[in-house]
């Protein structure tokens, strides 16, 4: 187990493995997202309150879930990089940010498009919406902070501190609907008891969430490869890859 772990954390090994992993993540992701979208738009019945309008859930919830999941991944990777000084971990953290920011934006936009017809407003400064907007600012702050340093080590460490400090926002987003009086309803699927959503409506959502997760992992693998190559530029294996004479470079 541990040899496997250290092998994985070795940059040339990761670079090669990630390349072969990408199609195994992205193709199933595409399939799951198509099945989920079909299930959500066509097969799932209309809602008793919101009619066909609730179908926005099939893009809103997976995006919102990713926005938080990616942030946690980023913060954990940044923490590992900070404590154990593993370069690969910093590469992972740096690669998470742009992906997470786009899904946060998607969550906010689809949420606004859902809020307008149902609640009667695009935006309210209420707990769930505000904390999700702050998540977007955290991603922006993380990316700006990274680009503000010329030295990669400094950039890694400073941004890791920001990522870790910002992680408190994630439970705030999740529990905001329970802690404060706001407009957003409570959680539907992450309850300890039975989910508050009929199974015919639930399964496309779960398929969609799984598809989005695989999609993120595929995109992450691609981005980390670029990051690793850049960080390892002075090493022998990276230069072999760049010259095209390496066994490492298969894809």
């Amino acid at each position: 187990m541990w040899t496997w772990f250290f092998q994985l954390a070795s940059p040339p090994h990761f670079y090669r493995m990630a390349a072969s992993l990408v199609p195994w993540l992205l193709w199933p992701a595409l399939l799951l997202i198509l099945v989920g979208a079909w299930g959500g738009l066509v097969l799932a019945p209309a809602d008793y309150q919101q009619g066909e309008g609730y179908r926005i859930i099939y893009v809103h919830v997976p995006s919102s879930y990713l926005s938080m999941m990616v942030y946690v991944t980023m913060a954990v990777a940044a923490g590992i990089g900070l404590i154990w000084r593993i370069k690969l971990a910093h590469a992972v953290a740096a690669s998470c940010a742009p992906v997470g920011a786009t899904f946060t934006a998607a969550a906010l936009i689809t949420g606004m498009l859902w809020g307008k017809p149902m609640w009667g407003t695009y935006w309210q400064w209420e707990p769930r919406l505000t904390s999700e907007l702050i998540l977007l600012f955290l991603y922006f702050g993380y990316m700006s902070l990274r680009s503000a340093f010329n030295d990669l080590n400094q950039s890694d460490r400073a941004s890791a501190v920001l990522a870790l400090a910002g992680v408190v926002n994630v439970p705030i987003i999740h529990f905001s609907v329970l802690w404060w009086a706001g407009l957003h309803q409570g959680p539907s699927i992450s309850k300890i008891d039975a989910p508050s959503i009929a199974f015919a409506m639930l399964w496309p959502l779960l398929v969609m969430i799984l598809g989005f997760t695989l999609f993120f992992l595929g995109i992450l693998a691609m981005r980390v490869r670029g990051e690793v190559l850049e960080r390892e530029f002075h090493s022998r294996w990276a230069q072999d890859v760049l010259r095209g004479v390496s066994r490492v470079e298969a894809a």
Partner: protein
Amino acid sequence: MSEFFAMGGYAKYVWSSFGVTAIVLILNLLAARRQLRQTRERLQLRLVRQSGRKVNT
């Protein structure tokens, strides 16, 4: 069929949500590919310049 696209009057909101999300997915894919390709090209150029300098001196 047209009933399906009408989404019970919520067409505007449902389809633009799905559209925005599709765009985000596609942009992520394109951006990740571009980032990998550009990094590789930039580093290759740097490598060529470096080895060129070594040959000259």
